C-alpha cells in the first residue's frame, strides 16, 4: 500500500518535472526577444523565432508526418524508433561486452593486489581518452582483424567503443563489491577451509551485488552515449546517433524534425535504465543488508 503510493508519487513528480520543462520552454519563447539576448558577441539566451525554438506542438505534429516528401517515406516517429532499435542492440552488445570485461578486471584486481596497483591507474587514464580520437584507431585495427570469413564491420567498431565506456563503472563497482565482505565473513570462510574460488561464489560475488548494480546502470547509460557518439565518428548508418546529426543538418529548412531523434535517444536511455532495474529486481535477495546488532 505504502510502497505503491510512493511509486505513484514518483511518477507524478516525474511528470511534473517534464511539464515544468515544457512550460519554461514555451514561456521563454513567449516573453524572450526574437533576436535572443547577447552581451557584446556572447549569446546569453537563444533566439526565440520558430526556427531556433519551435513550438512543442509543432515538434509533435512533425513527428507524425512523413520524413521526406518522397513516396513511401516513413513517418518520422517510426523512422526514429527503427533507428533506436538499430542502435539499441549495438549498445546492448557493447554493454554486455564491457560488463564482462569490467567484471573480469575487477576479479583480477581483487585476487592480486599487485594487479590492482598496476591496472587501476590505467583504467582511470583510459576514461580520459576522447572518443573521437579512439574511433579511427578502432576502425583501423578492426580492418586488420579477419577471423575466417568474418569481416570486421562498422557496427563492431561501434560496439567496441561503447564497451570501452561501459566497462569502467562496472569494473570500479565490482571491485568495491568484491572487496566488501567483512573480516568476520572472510575468516569464517577460512575456518571452513575453502579456497579462493569457492569463497568467490559463496561470499564475494553475492556480497558485490549492491555495488555492482549501480555500476551496471551507469555502464548502460555510458554504452548508449558511446554508441551515439561512435556512430557519428565511425560512420555507421541507420542508428540514432547518425540520425540526430542528419536531422540537425536539415534544421534550417525543417527545424521541427530535429527534436524527434533527440527524444528517441532519451527514451533509449530510459529503456536501458529499466532493463537494469529489472535485473535489480531479479537479484533482490542479495540486496538485503545484514542488520547491525
Amino acid at each position: 500500500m505504502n510502497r505503491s503510493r510512493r511509486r505513484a508519487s514518483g511518477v507524478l513528480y516525474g511528470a511534473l518535472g517534464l511539464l515544468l520543462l515544457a512550460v519554461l520552454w514555451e514561456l521563454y519563447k513567449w516573453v524572450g526577444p526574437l533576436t535572443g539576448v547577447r552581451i557584446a558577441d556572447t549569446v546569453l539566451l537563444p533566439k526565440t523565432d520558430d526556427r531556433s525554438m519551435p513550438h512543442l506542438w509543432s515538434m509533435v505534429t512533425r513527428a507524425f508526418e512523413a520524413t521526406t516528401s518522397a513516396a513511401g517515406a516513413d513517418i518520422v516517429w517510426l523512422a526514429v524508433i527503427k533507428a533506436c532499435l538499430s542502435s539499441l542492440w549495438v549498445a546492448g552488445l557493447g554493454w554486455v561486452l564491457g560488463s564482462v570485461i569490467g567484471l573480469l578486471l575487477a576479479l583480477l584486481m581483487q585476487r592480486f593486489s599487485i594487479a590492482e596497483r598496476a591496472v587501476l591507474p590505467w583504467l582511470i587514464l583510459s576514461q580520459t581518452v576522447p572518443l573521437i580520437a579512439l574511433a579511427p584507431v578502432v576502425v583501423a585495427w578492426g580492418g586488420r582483424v579477419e577471423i575466417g570469413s568474418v569481416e570486421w564491420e562498422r557496427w563492431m567498431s561501434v560496439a567496441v567503443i561503447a564497451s570501452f565506456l561501459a566497462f569502467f563503472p562496472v569494473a570500479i563497482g565490482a571491485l568495491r563489491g568484491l572487496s566488501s565482505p567483512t573480516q568476520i565473513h572472510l575468516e569464517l570462510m577460512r575456518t571452513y577451509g575453502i579456497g579462493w574460488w569457492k569463497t568467490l561464489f559463496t561470499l564475494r560475488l553475492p556480497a558485490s551485488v549492491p555495488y555492482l548494480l549501480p555500476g551496471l546502470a551507469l555502464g548502460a547509460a555510458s554504452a548508449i552515449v558511446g554508441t551515439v557518439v561512435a556512430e557519428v565518428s565511425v560512420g555507421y548508418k541507420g542508428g540514432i546517433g547518425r540520425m540526430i546529426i542528419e536531422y540537425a543538418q536539415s534544421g534550417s529548412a525543417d527545424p521541427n524534425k530535429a527534436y524527434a531523434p533527440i527524444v528517441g535517444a532519451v527514451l533509449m536511455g530510459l529503456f536501458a535504465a529499466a532493463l537494469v532495474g529489472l535485473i535489480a529486481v531479479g537479484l533482490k535477495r542479495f540486496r538485503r543488508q545484514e542488520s547491525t546488532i
Partner: protein
Amino acid sequence: MSTPLNKAPSAVSVRGVDKVFEMAKGATVAALTGIDLDLAPGEFVSLIGPSGCGKSTLMRLIADLDTPTAGTITVFGKTPQQARLDQDYGIAFQSAGLLPWRSVQANIELPLELHGVSKADRAERANELIELVGLTDFRSRFPDQLSGGMQQRVAIARSLAEKPNLLLMDEPFGALDEMTRERMQTELVKICSETGAAVVFVTHSIPEAVFLSDRVVVMSPRPGQIREIIDIDLGRGVDRGEDLREDAGFFAGVTAVREALHGQPAMGKLGVDLR
C-alpha cells in the same frame, strides 16, 4: 585435578606459546607470553581478562586464524591447520556474521553445503539445530528480520552444524542486552553438555565465565599471560539452571575470579612469576 585426565588425548594443548605482533616502523607488541593450557574433551573453559590480555589472540591461534611466534599448539593431537581443514571445531564471533542473502536455514546449512553434504541430510541436520536453538518459526526468515539474540542463536547453530568436538567462541554474547544474554547462557550451557563438545569461550564478564565454565583462565595484559586458572565446581552443564545464579557456590566462584583478576597489586609488579 585428578590424574586420569592425562590419559585421554586432550582436545586442545598449548605449550609455551608466544605471539608477537609486528607493528609499523619495526615496533613489536608481545600479545602472548609463555602460554600453557590443556583442555580435556568436553570441558568448558573460559578465557577472561581485561582488553589487550590476548584472550582473543589465543583463541585465534587455536583456530589457525593466526600462527604463534613460538611454542606449539595441538588440537585433538593435530596441528591447528589440520584441525581446521578437518572441520574439528566450530566457531562463533562477537557479531553473528550471517550471510544476509541466506535464510536462517540456509545460513545454518552453509558449512554442510560447502563440504558436499547432500541436500536431504543438510535439511535434516538444519531442522535438528533450528529446534535446538528454538527458532522453529523463523527458519525461512532472513537475518535482517531477526533480533540480535536470534541472529546469534543462528550463528551458534551454524557453528554446531558439523557436530564439532570443539567450539571456539569469541564473546558471542558481547553485544546482547543482559536479559537476552542470561537466557542465551542457559541455553548454551545445555547445548554444550548435550553435544559433549569442548569449548573455549572468550569473555570479559565474570558472572558469564563462572556460570558457563568448568575452569576459568584468568589472563593479564602486557605481556598477555595466564595469571591463574580457577576450577569452578558447579556440576554438569545440564544441571545448571537459572537458580544457580543465586547459589552460594556461584558467588564463591565470582569472588575467586574477581580476586584473581584484580590480583594482589604488589605481586603483579614483582616481575617473573616462577610458580
